[in-house]
């Protein structure tokens, strides 16, 4: 898929042609179906196509690249400020910040989120936790309510996230290495895309067709997610799992319920089942376990997997 941005063509591999990464794709899809999940944190070693998947998914769902907060951003661009060129012409014209833009589009993507300056992290946390963007600086005085989901990618080799920021991501995915066969398919897909990007290649068109089908299915799920029943028993199950896993805070059980509901909607089920919960818990509670929340490993231990199997079957 291509998109012209600021005069240049940006080519992104179609989402359907991304090899593997099923858990990552599931997390993004659930977050799209139920935005109240609050976003996705994607942690993975270098070269695992984390950013490509996010951008491809954004093109699939919104037709444009995500609102991106680069690690070089300064606070005036995050919060909003003045248009410099206009000011130089003697015109006072405000320039919306990335947070405001994300509020309109519903998502803020932060590449290499763990390399973000602490100062910028504080600004984001203020806004995400209060839902209020208050700018009172440089002769600007505005207050507005905004809400958006955070999507971040990070390489754990470069350090973890502060617990407060970690908790703001609804779901977390630990991107796994591909096996040899998947790697082979990935190499083929990437080189094929090198040739096909910007052309009317049938292979590319096929990928875009499959993307469109997926988009329609996701939209149907998004429209119906409110109608999916979540029984008292399932709600209790979500709470039980969070308790047994000693999840930090109470956001975990709520996100689990929303994610399970989104999965049920995606599979066109009328009600959430224990199986739906079982499949989303690794995403919703992974980073809320005490060890992971405080910088420890995010992988599930054998004991935790057994516990989940015992509770959820």
């Amino acid at each position, binding site marked *: 898929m291509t998109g012209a941005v600021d005069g240049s063509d940006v080519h992104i591999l179609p989402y359907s042609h991304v090899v593997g990464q099923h858990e990552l794709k599931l997390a993004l899809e659930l977050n799209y179906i139920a935005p109240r999940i609050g976003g996705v944190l994607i942690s993975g070693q270098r070269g695992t196509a984390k950013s490509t998947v996010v951008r491809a998914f954004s093109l699939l769902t919104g037709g444009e690249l995500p609102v991106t907060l680069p690690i*070089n951003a300064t606070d005036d661009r995050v919060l909003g400020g003045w248009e*410099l060129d206009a000011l130089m012409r003697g015109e006072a014209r405000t320039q919306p910040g990335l947070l405001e833009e994300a509020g309109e589009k519903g998502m803020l993507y932060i590449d290499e989120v763990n390399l973000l300056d602490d100062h910028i992290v504080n600004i984001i946390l203020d806004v995400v936790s209060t839902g209020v963007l208050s700018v009172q600086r440089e002769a600007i005085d505005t207050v507005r309510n905004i809400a958006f989901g955070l999507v971040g990618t990070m390489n754990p080799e*470069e*350090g973890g996230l502060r617990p407060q920021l970690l908790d703001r991501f609804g779901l977390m995915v630990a991107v796994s290495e591909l096996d040899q066969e998947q790697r082979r398919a990935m190499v*083929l897909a990437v080189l094929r895309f090198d040739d096909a990007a910007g052309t009317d290649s049938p292979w590319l068109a096929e990928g875009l067709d499959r993307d469109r089908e997926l988009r329609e299915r996701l939209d149907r799920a998004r429209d119906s997610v409110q109608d999916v029943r979540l029984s008292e028993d399932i709600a209790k199950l979500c709470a039980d799992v969070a308790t047994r896993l000693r999840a930090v805070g109470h956001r975990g059980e709520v996100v689990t319920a929303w994610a399970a509901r989104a999965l049920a909607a995606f599979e066109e089920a009328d009600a959430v089942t224990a199986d739906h919960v079982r499949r989303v818990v690794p995403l919703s509670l992974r980073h809320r376990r005490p060890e992971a929340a405080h910088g420890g490993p995010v992988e599930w231990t054998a004991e935790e997997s057994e516990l989940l199997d015992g509770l959820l079957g």
Partner: protein
Amino acid sequence: MSAPAEGRPVGPRQRLLQVLACSALGPGLDGVLLFDLEPEMVAPVTDAFAGLLQLREQRPVRRTTLGSVTGDDELWLRPTLRHDGNGVNFSLAPGPLVDNAPDSAMVVVVPDLVRLSLPGMRAAVQLLGADVAAVERSGFRARWRPRARWLAACQEAEIGRLSPHLLDRFPIRLNAAGLRRTSSGPDRVLDALDGREPEPGLGELPPSWRSALAARTRPACTLTEEAAAHAVGLFRGDTSGRRAIGLARLARVLAVVNGAETCGPDRVDEAARLLGVAAPLATPAGNGRSTNGTSLATGDGTDGRPPPPEQPKADPAPEDTGQAGQPGGAMALPAGPAEALDTFTADTGEERGSPFPEDDARFLREFAPLRIPWQRRPEPSSARGPVIGVRSATTLRDLAVVATVVEAAKHQNLPGRRTLRASGDGQLVVLPGDFRSYARLPVAERMLVLLLDHTCRRGWDWQPALAPYLQWAYTGRASVCLVEVGSKDAAHELRADHFIARSVLDPRVGGALHRHPGRSSPLAHGLTLTDQLLRRAFQQRSNLVEAWLVVVSDGRGNVPLDASAGGRLLRPVRRTGIDDAITAAARIGAMGRMRLHSVVIDAARQPHPDLPFLLADALGGVTVAGRTTRGVTPHAH
């Protein structure tokens, strides 16, 4: 490869040219990392790369060089100030790394990747191999598809200092230690005077490569399934997927240059040979082997050699020629007899070990090296730290662009400004008084001063006693000032040595902890030196918020201060060495610095166990037990 077919052997220069040409041909081969390139060769290699790129892109090539003091604003923005008679004209343009200009290509040159500034490294991670890049700074925003090629050099022995995350962005690696200027001695001087730089020139590139570079359309060339499997099989399963992709891309470029319509496993082997990628052991059957019958057997006498058991280790001594294959394991894919690549011995990647030496390198970098630490850069502390406000600028350094323009805007309708503005011109008039610079939170600095008396160390592992102080220095990003006395390796046995390191991760610190003891202990000189260093630090570093002085000694200095100064012993020492040390320690104590904590780690040596306590008293500090044997218990005095 075509060069031999055209009757010419492939030397290190041609190999380098081919690698650079591959990057120019691309796509996706934007980062080139050269190991052990002589600094004087950086400019000629850059010229060659720019020449290749110009041939490929048919447009001028812009060069940007990044160094150790390159900051974020210099990378992403280009503020321009112009005085036009009516005030200052001000504009912000895309910085040198924003390569979205349609009329030029770009090469980013990093002469020493290890010493690249942190903003430079973070920029490399953002740009290299990315589908899209963005900048959002000071009212300026841009999005573009990065197309710049990066040419970086670094010493292979220092690779452990770099983030693997950063290194992973360089798909093309080559050991360039063998690259030398062709002329030497008087010829070289004359060449330089005449402006004749002997450099890898485009003329050395085989015609088929030149044709491929000049071609406007790239011929279709399909990577076969077998080739993809082979590229994947050459790397361990836990390595980055970018490596196999990079190798496959390189193989396809080679196939295109050779006019092939498909790229099979033989081309992957050829690419692996070009870079020096080693064949792994125990490749799954049918996965890591060329399927077109091309043998892995060598043409250089290594036929039938069984693959060694591990991946190769990084060559710790780049000067060595490494004749005997790969240390520690797998051998480089050898050159086939039909090619001249194996005519090199010392200068090729394949002889040098893995092109990914970071896999086996010693861990010398900081934890999370790409994160902005509490302190890092050598600039004045006022230019660092988070922004906490703006103030009137006295220089053009660290300008707050938006605040400056807003300040100017407030005064536009004052009569003085109106007269400066041309009639009907809406341009903002900025006067020098409008300029604002950032006020930044001062960055706290910490320092560990370590005085090691090696003569007290016999039979004692002092590292556990030192560990808390070293850990403090690490977590506080403290600089380390290390004073050594009594080392067998001392430059002068009657004098103390010292060095200042940016952090405890400096290898010299580790080396100092393991030196063998000598005979003399110029403790008095060591403490005098320490006194001078501390005074200088407190005078010059206004943000020095905390310093620890840790003295590890038994207090038995046996070299008087005048002997250290004169470099020879003039009379019997007796107690003079000890007394001089106590006097020097007292001078440190007399500084009365609240931010200086002094501690003496007691080496507990007989027959004078009281000396460390006397030293601590003189310093105004405490004694802690170091050696816990011989009945000495840990305590503070």
